[in-house]
């Protein structure tokens, strides 16, 4: 017994090292799990408000780029309205209803920034700013300046002006943390636009412009340049949101699945403003799916 005690005292530093490393390792393993991406205080008030301060300074230096981005988005929305108005001539009743519902249901939230309701599937779009981000890791994240106060909850989809961005992971009162498409724990249910073949989109380091489309079987008709969109098979994203474009394609002699490279629609280098998708019937859908 005394020998054992002496041994423990002699190696106490080494044992402490082992103990602390084990604790750290447990943190790593727990923190890396998909659902807990950023659970360790990522969305808490202290780091959030520091990041917000940082963003307030940074935003002055990129006003020009932000303006350009917003203008571009405006142009796109205008084009869409024109498109809808044109359709209206063809099918007056239906399209007028769609157009009016998407404009007249415009409402304001607490900050006076508009949230607007998409007409077709009861998705509400909540605008948000990216106040911090990473793009050089295996598990990247974005921090947004909207939180539970604005109605954000985990598992909501996030889209940018060009396409899908990611999925909300954790939420605090004023902030939320998003695991973007460029996070190795994220799998996006996607489909090939032209034939509705459903496959899974998954990214891995280091190229943040490209991801892989998995599970596309040999017999499927797919080619470089095909558009990939969301499948709509989850409540996170509605169907037909842009994901990317097939940029490289290969099929070995004996392979039963394609190797497909997809150029992502969203450029994570210059992402500043996004929209969070709030699905009105989420609880209903969850409860009926789990019954």
């Amino acid at each position, binding site marked *: 017994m005394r020998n054992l005690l002496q041994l423990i005292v002699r190696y106490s530093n080494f044992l402490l090292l082992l103990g602390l490393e084990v604790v750290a390792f447990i943190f*790593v393993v727990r923190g890396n799990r998909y659902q807990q991406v950023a659970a360790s205080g990522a969305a808490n008030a202290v780091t959030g408000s520091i990041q917000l301060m*940082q963003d307030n300074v940074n935003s002055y230096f990129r006003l020009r780029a932000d303006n350009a981005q917003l203008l571009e988005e405006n142009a796109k929305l205008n084009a869409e309205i024109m498109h809808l108005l044109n359709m209206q001539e063809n099918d007056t009743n239906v399209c007028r209803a769609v157009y009016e519902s998407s404009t007249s249901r415009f409402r304001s939230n607490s900050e006076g920034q508009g949230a607007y309701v998409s007409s077709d599937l009861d998705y509400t779009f909540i605008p948000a700013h990216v106040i911090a981000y990473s793009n050089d890791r295996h598990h990247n994240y974005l921090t947004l300046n909207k939180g539970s106060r604005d109605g954000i909850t985990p598992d909501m989809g996030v889209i940018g002006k060009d396409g899908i961005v990611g999925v909300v992971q954790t939420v605090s009162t004023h902030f939320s943390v998003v695991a973007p498409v460029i996070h190795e724990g994220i799998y996006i249910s996607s489909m090939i636009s032209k034939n509705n073949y459903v496959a899974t989109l998954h990214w891995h380091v280091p190229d943040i412009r490209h991801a892989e489309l998995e599970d596309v079987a040999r017999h499927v008709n797919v080619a470089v340049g095909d558009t990939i969109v969301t499948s709509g098979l989850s409540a996170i994203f509605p169907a037909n949101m842009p994901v990317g474009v097939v940029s490289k394609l290969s099929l070995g002699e004996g392979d039963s699945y394609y190797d497909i490279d997809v150029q992502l629609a969203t450029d994570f280098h210059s992402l500043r403003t996004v929209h969070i998708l709030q699905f009105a019937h989420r609880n209903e859908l969850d409860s009926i799916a789990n019954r």
Partner: protein
Amino acid sequence: MAQWFKYIGILLLLLFMQVFLLDNLHWLGLVHPYVYLWAILLLPMELPRWMQMLLGATIGMLIDWFTHSPGIHMAGCVMIAFLRPQLVANYVQDVDRLKGAITINVLGLGNYLRLLAILIVVHHSIVFMLEAFTFYHLGYTLLQILLSGVFSFAFILMLEYVRKNT
């Protein structure tokens, strides 16, 4: 007491530099220098070793907190806080009687560079390997360790010279 105020000042400065500047570099997705580990070199040697390791763990957890990477930096910091006195003992005769920070003045330039290089390699290896958590892209991870290590080394030397001359 004054020594501790100075230390906490330097620590805050390093955290600030790390979180606000270096974590935002994103050079090529490869270079991610970690200069905050200089704070562990500056931990007073007269502290008991368990204390040095606990302080190292705390510094690591602070960084983890800001970078949303639970445990990763804690693991790296604890390891170098443990190794530092062992390594210093190779260069100095009475390591138990050393007081204060480990600096160029204490070790001499050659030994300081050697110590710094070893600690950076150990720390960066742990951090980047744990972050990847796979050996699948091992080449990429090794390149990350190498390039980031070179930049960390240069930055820390710069800081050390600034400290020495003020």
